[in-house]
């Protein structure tokens, strides 16, 4: 079994630290256990299961660090891995950016683990896929999808007394449903910590509805349009931007967060006043670990308030250089929205385009965060508050920074790959060409 309890992990880590002769020693012990099933053309294709556990020892003499890892846990192996990391440290070049170890920290227990998800078997996965296939077969559509679940634990201890442990589960599901003629396609994806929230039948019905609804798409001229981005589409645009809230690249002058003439945009109004972004590891819909890999606590952090950049993340090294507090970035991002549903956003739109999701997004210019990509799996024309007809897919060239300056309305945030993201109504979104892809 690759998933150890807090006490089991702590016992092994303590033993390893006890073998250390280095100036500083940090040991991490991680394991995961998971399985997956994939299907296409309304039938299962591949499936698998794997479980792994591994221990890594970081030994430091002065500013010279060596790392060694092992996946055997008897005393002799543990002694061997410590010795090997110490030998490597002696050979390593000095790391001028080495930071001394942190002492004990206080980490509250996270809420990332769910026992039912951890207990999933090949049988559970096959049943969940069978439900998805029921939908596509009954509607004479074709489904291709993927279901995966994992349980993992992460733990770390150092010779200055820091100890942290986290156990988490995840179940993720995505499905593409297409009509048999290949003229309509719908998609949905969702992940949860808690298996009970995952309803593959209901999700597949949404994808099937989009598949039927998107058939017979019409072409309209590319250009600037008001768009309603479903949370998935908005999340696709924003993930890249969130990763750019980094003080070092901003200070170095090579980020969209860099200020002309030097320094960062911290404190500047970079987005519309209706944009508020924070992260919180205790968000009930999107919990995350309460510590980051540097051993720092993850706390609720306001990144953007009323459009003003309130915080950038600092590594411990960069914080020391700049006299700032270290601040880790955290996955549990929330872009605050309102209470409107997607349907209400559509109802309040005179003319616009509804986007289900984007695809193949790549950075075009890191200076402005200009991205290119395409709409996929359901793009619709809205007129007088109603969906009128499906549209052919577009390529866009747009920056999420520009996008967050053109926000007309925000709906209720939902869990996506980039955080809790609301559906968004954006004006002047730039589509640059048409695509024949369905």
């Amino acid at each position, binding site marked *: 079994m690759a998933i150890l309890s807090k006490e089991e992990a702590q016992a092994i880590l303590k033993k390893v630290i006890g073998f250390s002769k280095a100036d500083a020693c940090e040991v991490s012990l991680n394991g995961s256990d998971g399985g997956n099933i994939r299907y296409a053309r309304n039938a299962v294709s591949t499936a698998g299961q794997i479980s792994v556990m591994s221990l890594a020892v970081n030994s430091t003499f002065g500013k010279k660090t060596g790392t060694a890892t092992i996946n055997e846990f008897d005393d002799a192996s543990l002694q061997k891995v410590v010795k090997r990391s110490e030998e490597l440290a002696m050979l390593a070049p000095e790391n001028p950016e080495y930071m001394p170890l942190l002492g004990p920290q206080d980490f509250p227990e996270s809420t990332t683990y769910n026992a039912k998800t951890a207990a999933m078997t090949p049988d559970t996965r096959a049943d969940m896929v069978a439900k998805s296939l029921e939908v596509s077969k009954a509607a004479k559509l074709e489904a291709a999808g993927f279901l995966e679940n994992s349980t993992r634990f992460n733990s770390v201890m150092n010779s200055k007394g820091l100890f942290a442990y986290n156990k988490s589960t995840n179940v993720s599901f995505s499905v593409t449903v297409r009509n048999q003629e290949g003229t309509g396609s719908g998609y949905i994806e969702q992940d949860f910590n808690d298996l009970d929230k995952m309803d593959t039948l209901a999700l597949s019905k949404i994808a099937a509805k989009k598949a039927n609804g998107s058939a017979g798409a019409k072409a309209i001229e590319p250009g600037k349009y008001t768009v309603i981005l479903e949370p998935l589409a908005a999340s696709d645009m924003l993930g890249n931007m969130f990763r750019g809230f980094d003080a070092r690249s901003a200070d170095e002058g*090579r980020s969209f967060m860099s200020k002309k003439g030097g320094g960062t945009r911290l404190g500047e109004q970079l987005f519309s006043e209706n944009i508020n972004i924070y992260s919180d590891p205790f968000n009930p819909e999107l919990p995350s670990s309460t510590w980051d890999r540097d051993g720092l606590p993850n706390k609720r952090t306001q990144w953007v308030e009323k459009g003003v950049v309130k915080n950038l993340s600092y590594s411990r090294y960069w914080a020391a250089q700049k006299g700032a507090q270290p601040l880790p970035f955290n996955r549990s991002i929330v872009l605050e929205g309102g209470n409107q549903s997607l349907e209400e956003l559509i109802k309040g739109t005179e003319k616009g385009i509804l986007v289900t999701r984007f695809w193949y997004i790549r950075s075009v210019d890191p200076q402005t965060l200009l991205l290119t990509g395409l709409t996929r799996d359901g793009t619709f024309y809205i007129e007088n508050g109603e969906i009128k007809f499906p549209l052919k897919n577009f390529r866009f060239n747009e920056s999420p920074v520009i996008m967050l300056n053109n926000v007309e309305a925000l709906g209720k945030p939902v869990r996506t790959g980039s955080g809790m993201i609301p559906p968004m109504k954006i004006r002047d979104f730039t589509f640059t060409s048409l695509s024949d892809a369905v």
Partner: protein
Amino acid sequence: MKRRNFIYLTGVGAAAAMLPAIPVWGNEIPFEKSLEYVDPASKKIIADVALNAARSKGATYTDVRIGRYLNQYVVTREDKVENLVNTESYGVGIRVIANGSWGFAATDKMDKDSIAKAAELAVAIARENSRLLAEPVKLAPQTGYGEVSWKAPIEKNAFEIPIKEKVDLLLSVNDAAMKGGADYINSILFMVNEQKYFASSDNSYIDQDIHRIWPTFFITKINKETGKFETRNALSAPTGMGYEYLDAKPEHKIHTAAGTVYKGRYDMLEDARQGATQVADKLKAKSVEPGKYDLVLDPSHLWLTIHESCGHPTELDRVLGYEANFAGTSFLTLDKWESKKFNYGSKVVNITADKTEKGSLGAVGYDDEGVKCGKWDIIKEGILVNYQAIRDQAHIIGLDHSQGCCYADNWSSVQFQRMANISLQPGKQPLTVDDQIKNVEKGIYIVGDGSFSIDQQRYNFQFGGQLFYEIKAGKIVGMLKDVAYQSNTQEFWNSCVAVCDQRDYRLGGSFFDGKGQPSQSSAVSHGSATARFKGVNVINTARKIG
């Protein structure tokens, strides 16, 4: 999220946004341990345990892949070594057919008991899933090869080169760029050795030793007054070679209007020097006027367009819909192939698939389901003539054998159809890069790869680049910036008017072609000579924020 343990390269710091996300699979090991090779005889014992266990549980077919995957990464910035990482991932993946369905399980516990259990689990999964089958898996026949081996024809094993020599090279590259006026440089040496053992119930026992190397850098220069910055990435290619790739002789250099480009070998120091000059030129370059231009595309750029617009749409699993939920499907549907007259490109467009080309990333003796590799036509004089298939798909296109395109990125990943080296063949008439430029009235000469995006059926694409030169009346008149071109695959390849001859043929490629769920990376090369395209739509990508 991937299910394996992984280490993301850390400490890359500021340039992280400009680097690809680099997953480094496996456990860190001492450098000298990379040189040990596991004896095939001991791998055969393990394989037989799995084959017998699966057979006894009722598997009608089994293959066993025992993989030792070694990675070495040397990461530096300016005058600092940021990271030295040496990893090993060793384990076994067992794939079976039972009740007509595939099942797969993997373990890193190499004792006989754990391996037998993994084989049994694979059979149990196959049986469980057979209730969701439409029809039983049908494999193309494959005769066993017995005990055979294949080794990549490298001259210098990169893992044998002392770390100090590699660190010194990167630091001297960084120094050259900084002296040349760069503000920042990140440089990286990636080295890969896959030691793969394949055994199957068809009586094949195949031992293979595969090497790959990719030296690369990212230079940044900032204009502090305007707050603008530009980057210039290395013009190297990841290759299926040893450390000899870094030993360039004059015959490996082609001198063009964009400076020196490299054929088969790479001079990293020289490229860093010219990169530092060119990144300064990029800051001063003229912003492009959008419109139609003739494009002259260097192989260091064109490989990526070939990869996206020909490599992917001719993958048979995409054509059939097996990738519909992730990478997408393909516009090159079976009816287009059956018609034998689908005009993919102009008459000068000849594209081949080749799993044997020396020095390429995709070259192996046998694929990951034990099929001997070869070469075949994909597009012949502009017409779609074939796809890329594996054993359980071959019958769909009327083949009685697999084309050997099966690959898994790790012992713990299930193998599936992956791209062969897909290359544009050079023109038959003598033609140089200068000749191509001379024939352009209004155009852009593009060198190096940049931003890339294509739709899920591979119609509409947009590509950037590293260096853009304006061509007017047959002459290069200066550098451009903010350039990207958008086109449609069929339209684009039909606008191809000329391809340079064999002398200019070069390989580009990627270490990280992503496909599948869970996502897997595959390394693949694409060859071409400089090619010219008529009247392609160019957009201006400059924007203003804040």
